[in-house]
């Protein structure tokens, strides 16, 4: 199942990669629902606080009194209704999540696959033809690029900031992420897991090139 919501965004914002649009869509979904729910609940909290501020010393009939266990009040109905509402909201956002996960985790076929080796403190990239580069990654525009992320030492995280996707780099494990960059340019690679003294500077560059430029560079 593929949701191609990102087409709707074309023209309004630049879609860097299919995942960025899908991610934005999902985040906006969560943020909208979250803000509405938050506004209602906190609004209700503030409203009740103001509305029911004590006026004078008069006490409600069932006010707590010393040495007396307070009477019970409230029904299960409230809990039941709330459960239904929350469950409904969760169901909606879960559907959105599952679709997005599908998109993120199933790289389209026929892609350029690059091995990513994280190490203290830098990045090494190995291309299918055996070409190796350090720190500066070059990829062609408009092509699906799959990254097989692993680590040579400690736990790192391969983060492509502008592309809104990250892969945990763990020794002995390979995690897969993919992008399909639509714009040529220079993008940031950064480590998102504390990996020692050099963590702050564990950055790299990803240069998205026009396909023909890339081919020339790749053949070198």
């Amino acid at each position, binding site marked *: 199942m593929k949701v191609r919501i990102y087409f709707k965004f074309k023209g309004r914002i630049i879609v860097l990669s299919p995942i960025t649009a899908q991610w934005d869509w999902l985040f906006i979904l969560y943020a909208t629902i979250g803000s509405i729910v938050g506004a209602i*609940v906190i609004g209700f909290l503030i409203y009740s606080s103001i509305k029911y501020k004590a006026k004078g010393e008069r006490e409600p009939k069932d006010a707590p009194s010393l040495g007396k266990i307070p009477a019970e009040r409230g029904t299960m109905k409230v809990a039941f209704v709330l459960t239904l509402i*929350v469950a409904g909201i969760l169901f909606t956002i879960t559907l959105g999540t599952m679709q997005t996960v599908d998109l993120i985790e199933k790289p389209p076929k026929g892609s350029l696959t690059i091995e990513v080796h994280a190490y203290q403190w830098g990045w090494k990239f190995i291309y299918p033809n055996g070409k190796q580069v350090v720190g500066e990654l070059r990829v062609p525009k408009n092509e699906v690029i799959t990254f097989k992320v692993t680590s040579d030492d400690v736990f790192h995280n391969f983060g492509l900031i502008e592309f809104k996707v990250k892969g945990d780099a763990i020794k002995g494990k390979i995690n897969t992420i993919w992008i399909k960059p639509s714009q040529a340019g220079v993008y940031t690679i950064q480590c998102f897991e504390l990996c*020692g*003294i050099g*963590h702050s500077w564990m950055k790299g560059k990803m240069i998205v090139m026009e396909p023909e430029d890339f081919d020339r560079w790749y053949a070198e």
Partner: protein
Amino acid sequence: MDSSLTRWLFTTNHKDIGILYLVTSLYFLILGGALAILMRIQLMLPNNQFLSAGPFNQAVTVHGLIMVLWFLSPLAFAFANYIVPLQIGARDLAFPRLNAMSYWFYLFGGLLAAVGFFTPGGAIDTGWTVYAPLNTLNYSRQLGVTLGGAGLLMLIASVTMGTVNFLVTIFRLRAKGMSLFKMPMYSWGILLTVFMMLLAFPSILAGVIMLVADRLLGTLYFLSNEGGAILWDHLFWFFGHPEVYILLMPGLMAIAEIFPVFARRPLYGKRILIFAAIIGSAMSFIVWAHHMFVTGIDPGFRKFMTITTEAISIPFGIITLCLILTLFRASIRFKTPMLFALGSLALFIVGGITGVFNSSVALDYNLRGTYWIVAHFHYTLVGGATGGLIAALYYWWPKMTGRMYSERLGKLHFTIYMIGFNLLYFPMHLLVDMPRRVAVYSEEGSLWLNNYLSTIGSFIFAISWIIFFLILLKSLRNGKRAESNPWGSWSLEWMVPSPPPYHNFDVNPEVESDGTIKVINANGGSVESETHNVHLSKGPLMVALGTFLALLGVSLSIFILLIGSIIFAIALFGWAKENILGRFVIREPEVGERWPFSSICNMKLGVWFFLFGEVVFFSSILGGYLFIRANSTSWPILGEVFDLKLASINTFLLITSSLTAMMALNFIRKGEQRGLKLGLLLTFALGLLFLINKGIEWEELFKHGFTPSSSLPATIFYTTTGIHGAHVLAGLIVLLYLLVRAYKGGFSRENYDSVEYFDMYWNFVDVVWLFIFPLLYLI
């Protein structure tokens, strides 16, 4: 009241210990807060050079560890110690000396971790999550990490003791008629908290022991690919996620305690709220993998954890709603405790909603490891949990000190607190492009503005805490004397003077069926007078000090280890002597509410709870083994490494010793002293033989190059059997004590409890062996 140093060092009284926890946790708050300010100053501007990466990483790590483990939970336990016994109508906790020891282990554990700052390479700097394999010697050579691990071990010991103590206290020492549902909400919060602690902490204990073994003995748990990062993740987060609910629950329940008092209406849906809290606590154990969503774990498992993580918002949503409905048609008085309760609930709601974002695997692909996460958990743990506990502090302060504070300054504190908090943490939501725990960020991008705002917020927030401390000091100096019930509350702690007398109640309280709390005379009206001296004990402090030095010695020098061990041994000896001479007497009240544990005594229930924790602990250790085994391609086949003859002999020895231990118990039940002595002696001999035989086995294996660092099977073999051997050794030490007592005629037909508890423990240790033997030797 006596305020000498002796009182505070050797006290076992729950209120004194509560004060000690309060002061210590606030001290750690200042320490953790100062570290946070240092970090915020560094991050105020791009490319700032205030702190370099090394000190920054130490600040990040120690800030996290202190705030989570040495500030937040202990602050909750300050009130748990002081207030819970009063609320349920008890004179003290079930095991006062254990309670004191729990405190000293907490304090010394913190010191042990902090010693790291003064060693070369500095304190632990791996992040509070201490991720593998960065935590191993290969990547973090400095002593600070080992010391951090050792400090954690002491803290876990402290928590375990506290857990057992509070469970027994709440289940067994309630006043007559005080059913579980009648208990005030804070006591409920602590009950659920200690249950979660009992289940969660053994997992991190297993993890830390493996880590310390890796660092000191060269085992391979976290260096190997088969264990490594993912094994640590599982062990850490199986603890770590319940831990956030452990931190949250007391604060949330303090809010539930405070709302009805200041809104002048009973809590809305108390039962619903309690059920929701129970369900939420239980569910906190099946959500841990959401911290590992993008580590590449099994998708099916991950789907399950996604659903549970989302679903856990339902019980907490219900709790929130019940709290808000309490305000409906109420008559709210905005005193300082109420303001903090309201404010922290609002902030918790924000943190709860951003938490739902994090339950989405898809969103995690981008949010993971960013400041969004930092914003989320500070809203829940500072906004929700800490705010709730500060409300609790303002609420119970008059009770604990007998002094009121300035309401005007309290409101000023609240206002500045809320402004500072939101300015400090809200901008972090917008720093989705910034990794956590970076010391430096560059000028490109738009990171600086939100960082700048956040730092300004942190200064305002810090000022609010300075006001807070001034309020407390001013109150202590010249605050108005507090009445016994200044807020118009209903529960038992408010029925005694402020501060309460040493023995809490002149007479045993009782709850009548219509909900009236009465105080009837216990011993024909005679007021019991208990003086401090009866309840002073040197043991707790000395045992903790001995352990502290021993662990420090293990990391630093054999000499300190030796001194520590001697102090430890002397302390244990003194403790045993105190018991044998009957100098420290704890009486269980005659009448009380004890459902569902009415038929067994306190000590036995305590042993049961302790063994339950042990089960989780060994499950974690063996679970770690099975995890590694499942990831390994090759493993030695039957008989390739181990001499099955020796192992079989050991199995035989241990099973037999179980029988002799039971024999000893049966004899003393019939009052036969000689049989008891014989049984205990035989058990001791068999246990000793087991250890000797184990030693021979280890030596043989060593000779063949099968050392802890030689392979994963060796790593697991030595760690697992070593931990089990340590349990046998501990059993033998207890056995020695029992033997001395038996030869002094300390047991009789009526009095044989200690033998019974030992039997429970010994049988447990044997059963563990019955798992270890096939799992390690035969498959």
